[in-house]
């Protein structure tokens, strides 16, 4: 199968959907000629013209709000938010308006829009351009949250997001834009709420989101060398969350670690771990462990930044503790 970058996969997904449905348009900063600073959208304005690929002023709250109104009236907007950190700027329009409109109107109005943005540290971009803020939107009922972990996932999830009748926030890992993966030529969609088991194993379940899926896979390799069989699962979407697949895995392995690049405290690892603890409690040989980013603003200095995010080594370390029963009496 051909291999393409995550960036190209996103581009293809959007282009294919825009060809299919003229109601779709895309708006954001420097999305047209520049094709975004990450060049993810290059070529789209040439194909679809400036009326469907709209360069906006630097007005995130404004164009987010406009997307809500457009979505309520028959259009299907895709909003490009250059950095995930800017989601703080659009929270009101996203969470007070987009997320609630369908409910508040008793089902009469709907807001089919996609907010595509990114996450991920270690790009030396410091505290305001490195955050992984998916936990915030996951907390708000009415939003769906997708977290692609490869080019293949990015294409399939983006297409599903675009066809969804609800507001969807999709977080791409900005460090993975140039990572290649096999992506079929034929059309495919990846349904929301169906976790992907990347590797089967009976000793411990490693649940990773976005780029942390790679981290889990690398950890699984290292563990395999030591004879430990880790199961690696990518939930793909955290809202909806495919609890069943996760729970069944944990019932089998009796141990789990949840790995995520958002801050650990009050982030998504607590939710996933809690659901596993609640629903597979009597199968657990060790508490479900969590590994999130450190609870510090992302530092600029490479010397510091690199230690703030989960690594395969740290996953392995935690896994071994769980397996050896070293979590007895707590951390």
């Amino acid at each position: 199968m051909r291999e393409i970058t995550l960036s190209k996969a996103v581009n293809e997904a959007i282009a294919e959907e825009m060809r299919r449905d003229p109601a779709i348009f895309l708006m954001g900063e420097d999305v047209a000629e520049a094709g975004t600073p990450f060049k993810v959208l290059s070529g789209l304005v040439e194909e679809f013209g400036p009326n469907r690929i709209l360069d906006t002023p630097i007005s995130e709250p404004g164009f987010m709000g406009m997307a809500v109104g457009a979505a309520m009236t028959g259009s299907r907007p895709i909003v490009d938010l250059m950095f995930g950190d800017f989601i703080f700027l659009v929270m009101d329009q996203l969470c007070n308006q987009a997320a609630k409109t369908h409910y508040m109107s008793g089902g009469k109005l709907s807001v089919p829009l996609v907010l595509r943005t990114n996450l991920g540290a270690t790009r030396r971009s410091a505290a305001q351009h490195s955050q992984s803020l998916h936990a915030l939107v996951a907390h708000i009922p009415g939003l769906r949250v997708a977290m692609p972990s490869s080019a293949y996932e990015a294409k399939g999830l983006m297409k599903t997001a675009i066809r969804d009748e609800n507001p969807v926030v999709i977080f791409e890992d900005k460090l993975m834009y140039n990572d290649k993966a096999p992506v079929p030529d034929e059309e495919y969609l990846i349904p929301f709420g169906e976790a992907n088991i990347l590797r089967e194993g009976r000793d411990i379940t490693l649940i990773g989101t976005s780029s942390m899926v790679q981290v889990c896979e690398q950890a699984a390799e290292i563990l395999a060398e030591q004879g430990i069989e880790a199961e690696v699962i990518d939930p793909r979407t955290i809202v909806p969350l495919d609890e069943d697949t996760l729970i069944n895995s944990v019932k089998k392995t009796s141990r789990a670690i949840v790995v995520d690049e958002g801050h650990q405290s009050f982030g998504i690892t607590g939710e996933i771990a809690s659901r596993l603890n609640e629903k597979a409690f009597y199968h657990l040989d060790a508490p479900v462990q969590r590994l999130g980013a450190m609870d510090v603003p992302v530092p600029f200095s490479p010397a510091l930044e690199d230690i703030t995010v989960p690594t395969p080594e740290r996953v392995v370390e935690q896994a071994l503790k769980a397996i050896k029963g070293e979590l007895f009496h707590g951390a």
Partner: protein
Amino acid sequence: MSRNAKKSNHEAYVRMYQQMVRIRAFEDNANKLYLAAKMPGLTHMYSGQEAVAVGICEALKSTDKITSTHRGHGHCVAKGADFKEMFCELLGKEEGYCRGKGGSMHIADQENGNLGANAIVGGSAGIATGAALSAKHLGKDDVTVCFFGDGALGQGLLYEVMNMAALWNLPVIYACENNLYGEYTKVEEMAAGELTGRAKAFGIETFVVNGQDVLAVNKLSEELVERARKGEGPFFIQLDTYRYHGHHVGDINREYYRPKDEEELWKTERDPITNFGAWLLKEKVLSQQELDQIHDEVSQDAKDAVAYAEAAKYPDISEVDMHVYKQNPVGGAA
């Protein structure tokens, strides 16, 4: 009343009078429901500002869109809503426009183009501008009117979207209802400079009109809606008006921020219904009897709707987690 008003449009005159009376009746009944402790929560009365909503909405087709505010009953009625579904909504009943889920502050009537009231001040400026962008994108000639209060001029979002509306010539009209107060604060303590300057900044054409004169409001609106439809928008209108009640139904003792004689002056000399009624009589559009009949009919309508809503049932508790997500079509997305 404005001199330019033509007598020709008999039907429109009657409809505008009727609609203003309907808004007033709706509010009087809502207030009564509140005072009788029959209405859950609080609500914000539109009484006094009727000419604004009616003068503007009379210029709109039903496919044209509006966005509304926390003080939204007037916009809702003016855009064509029915009393029954409105009162049901206010009481949280299943037959309400939003199945009781929205209430007064989120009342919406999509079929008549009302994209909904909004409890975030200024929160609908993006929605309105986006609806205008959507019309352009989909090749429709719909116009959107964004209603908001003087207080909403404090919100930065408005400036962001006015800029984009101007850059892209969107068919949107920003209707700023200047009722002199935002909650308990005077407009001049909240807004530096001229109100219209805030739209002029983006090269948007602005207008100031007496918001108590339904004919003046309507005449200007007809012009601007037509121009916006042709792609000459956006526009900004400052409509000077006044709310008769407190900020909300519970705001009773308000002399510390608003003098009684000011209220009296507006109510007695500038009432949009009284004055338009007098004009209709003077111009012989309607007789006193016909005017009375309108009042009687409307008041009976309102009474019936209230009774209906009081008797109507609440949504079943199984509805509580319905409509969080819209179901995707089968064979479509997950």
